[in-house]
């Protein structure tokens, strides 16, 4: 490849510059403001410790449970359907879950599990669990976060497992007299955890700093810190905006601590596995191994859950005159679609066009990054590439506001760093397994580097390329904080419209937006789904 550095400059300008903008903004805040006074105001703000604890507990609970569930189900993820060389990156059921926007998931599951929801109508038994789903407690946020982060972590687990020769490790373990599950837990899991470190950090930081989901899932509780930061910023009062920046800086520090927590968790599990290597299992550990069989059913359960949630949304949107405790509505119609289509379709089209632009840019940047690494024969640290996901989004967006204008182009730019990072997560592991000699071979036939790339590498890496494109689109469609703050409310998308509606009590309307978001994401995945059978054969070793 000629001039790799020049190409990398494009990546640095589009993704690196926005991240570098953090430095002057923080420096300005630290030197030009009365820092101690702002911090005192922040700490003295009514309910500060509650906000802080809500954020931290949501992150720790989500991270711990998601890690546990991902690990117990990891062994069963790598089934026939999930192996990329046997027909696709993940099955359609999986794609259904991945395509489900987190807000759509939240609407559907909250309605299902709320005290007047479908579930309790089906099973009319009084339960102490009922009120927990009434958007009054943080528990509903935790559950939604766990349910939404788990499929992402499964996806990353699959990618990580493809890089480990774990089948041979299991064979070696068996030949040495260990059971398969013992070898799995003692040998494969520690190696897998190392590879999941960054995705787990992404989960932790997201759970710590989530805004839109918290606004929707637990609006009647004291807000987590990230939500309060967003509200301060929206107050347009200079003092509140200072508080917002100080709060986002605090979130940045907390995000660092959460990443430390991920490392601690990894070390703890690693040492536990090491200790087990040299002794027989205790009763608790044997029980734990046996219980881990539930992991087998979790992914399937999620596929069924996705189907139920989809049906729930359909029922909510098309049902008319549906009062408690009726199991089905009095009548079905399309009145809501007819009444709202004009508004919904406007947001949907805008979301789609923005997402296509963002995904195209992100994918090009991804390819340039990967080829630069190949040309220089050196790897950019993965943590640096994923920095947009490891820094709280609200903090980055607040930094960008003074540098940007409330126009569509700036919104697209604000989406790109996040979509780029997710696209890299999907593309890089496969690209690194690619046999680059195919490209050299093509070049010996007289093709230029990029001609050879297009004719050889693109078709061979079709699956990861399209997966990365789809993921980048889905990420862009789901963006709330960058769209609402950088767009200044002038670039309404399906997601911003939905969150604006979420404070109301019209569940059918929320369901309509949720269903449209889901359908939009599903259409993206169906259109982009790779069809060629041999497209992943270039991924080697």
């Amino acid at each position, binding site marked *: 490849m000629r001039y790799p550095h020049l190409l990398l400059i494009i990546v640095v300008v589009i993704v690196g510059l926005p991240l570098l903008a953090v430095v002057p903004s923080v420096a300005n805040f630290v030197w030009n403001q009365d820092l101690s006074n702002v911090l005192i105001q922040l700490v003295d703000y009514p309910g500060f410790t509650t906000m802080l604890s809500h954020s931290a507990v949501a992150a720790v609970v989500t991270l711990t449970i998601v890690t546990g569930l991902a690990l117990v189900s990891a062994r069963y993820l790598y089934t026939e359907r999930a192996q990329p060389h046997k027909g696709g990156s993940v099955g359609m059921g999986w794609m259904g879950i991945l395509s489900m926007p987190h807000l759509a998931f939240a609407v559907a599951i909250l309605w299902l599990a709320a005290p007047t929801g479908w579930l309790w109508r089906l099973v009319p038994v009084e339960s102490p669990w009922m009120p927990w789903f009434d958007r009054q407690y943080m528990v509903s946020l935790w559950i939604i976060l766990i349910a939404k982060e788990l499929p992402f972590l499964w996806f990353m687990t699959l990618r990580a497992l493809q890089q480990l020769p774990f089948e041979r490790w299991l064979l070696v373990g068996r030949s040495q007299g260990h059971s398969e599950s013992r070898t799995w837990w003692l040998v494969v899991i520690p190696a897998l955890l190392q590879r999941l470190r960054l995705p787990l950090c992404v989960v932790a930081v997201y759970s710590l700093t989530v805004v839109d989901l918290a606004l929707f899932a637990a609006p009647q509780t004291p807000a987590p810190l990230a939500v309060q930061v967003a509200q301060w910023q929206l107050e347009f009062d200079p003092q509140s905006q200072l508080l917002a920046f100080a709060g986002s800086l605090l979130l940045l520090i907390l995000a660092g601590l959460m990443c430390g927590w991920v490392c601690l968790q990894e070390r703890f599990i690693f040492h536990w596995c090491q200790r087990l290597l040299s002794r027989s299992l205790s009763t608790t550990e044997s029980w734990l191994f046996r219980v881990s069989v539930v992991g087998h059913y979790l992914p399937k359960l999620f596929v069924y859950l996705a189907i139920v949630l989809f049906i729930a949304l359909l029922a909510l949107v098309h049902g008319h005159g549906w009062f408690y405790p009726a199991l089905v509505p009095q009548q079905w119609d399309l009145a809501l679609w007819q009444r709202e289509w004009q508004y919904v379709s406007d947001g949907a089209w805008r979301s789609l066009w923005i997402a296509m632009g963002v995904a195209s840019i992100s994918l090009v940047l991804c390819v340039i990054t990967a080829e630069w690494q190949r040309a220089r024969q050196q790897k950019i640290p993965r943590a640096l590439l994923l920095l947009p996901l490891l820094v709280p989004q609200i903090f980055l967006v607040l930094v960008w506001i003074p540098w940007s204008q409330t126009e569509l182009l700036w919104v697209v730019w604000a989406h790109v760093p996040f979509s780029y990072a997710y696209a890299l997560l999907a593309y890089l592991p496969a690209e690194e397994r690619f046999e680059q000699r195919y490209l050299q071979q093509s*070049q*010996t036939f007289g093709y230029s580097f990029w001609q050879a790339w297009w004719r050889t590498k693109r078709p061979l890496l079709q699956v990861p390329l399209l997966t990365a494109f789809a993921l980048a689109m889905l990420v862009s469609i789901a963006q709330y904080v960058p769209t609402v703050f950088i767009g200044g409310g002038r670039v309404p998308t399906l997601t911003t419209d939905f969150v604006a509606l979420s404070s109301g009590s019209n569940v059918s309307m929320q369901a309509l937006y949720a269903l449209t978001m889901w359908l939009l994401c599903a259409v993206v995945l169906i259109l982009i789904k790779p069809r060629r059978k041999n497209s992943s054969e270039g991924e080697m070793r």
Partner: protein
Amino acid sequence: MSDSVVLSTSPIHIRWRDHQVDLPALQVNSGCVLGVMGPSGSGKSTLLRWLLGDVPNYVQVQGKIYVCGERVDALPIAKRSMGIVFQDVLLFPHLSVLDNLLFALPAEYRKNPRNDQVERVVSELEQVQLVKYAKVLPTALSGGQRARVGLLRALINEPRVLLLDEPFAALDQSLRERIRDWAFQRCQERGIATVMVSHQHDDFNTTTENQVAVMQWPESQL
């Protein structure tokens, strides 16, 4: 067969980590074969990668490369007029045998109508009795068939120099000899200078009329 020099180099100094290898100036005439023999891991393949224009960045190589008198070491791979066949052949798995060969036709030939291109490829396949496999994906071929298609793909591009990185190592003895002789014969007919690395001396005991010079890989000096 012409005796004109096709590939020549200045003395070559290869250095990586704590190894250094100094090679004399190389010269390969039209239709001739230069065999490079040495143990595995001694840097033979690095020589081929350097000739091709793709040296790993932990290796420093000093030397000049000339193809038909023109200096090529600053040129990109696509302009060096060199073909390569690796040990694992690397046929493109997503393309049929026919498409693999169409892909490798010389740039000027690719401007012709597709029918002409297909005709040319089919005639080449006929010569090696592989025409019935034209529509087949490489995964359906045997090891020997894959090696022949790989060699054919390199030759159909009409390179001036052919680099062979142990392309017969995975084949059994008799098949290896047949395919090697077939490849050498074609190189001689087309006046291609061939550099082949191997760790087996038998690989150079050809019955064809090529002039084969075997260079023993020197020992590392550091």
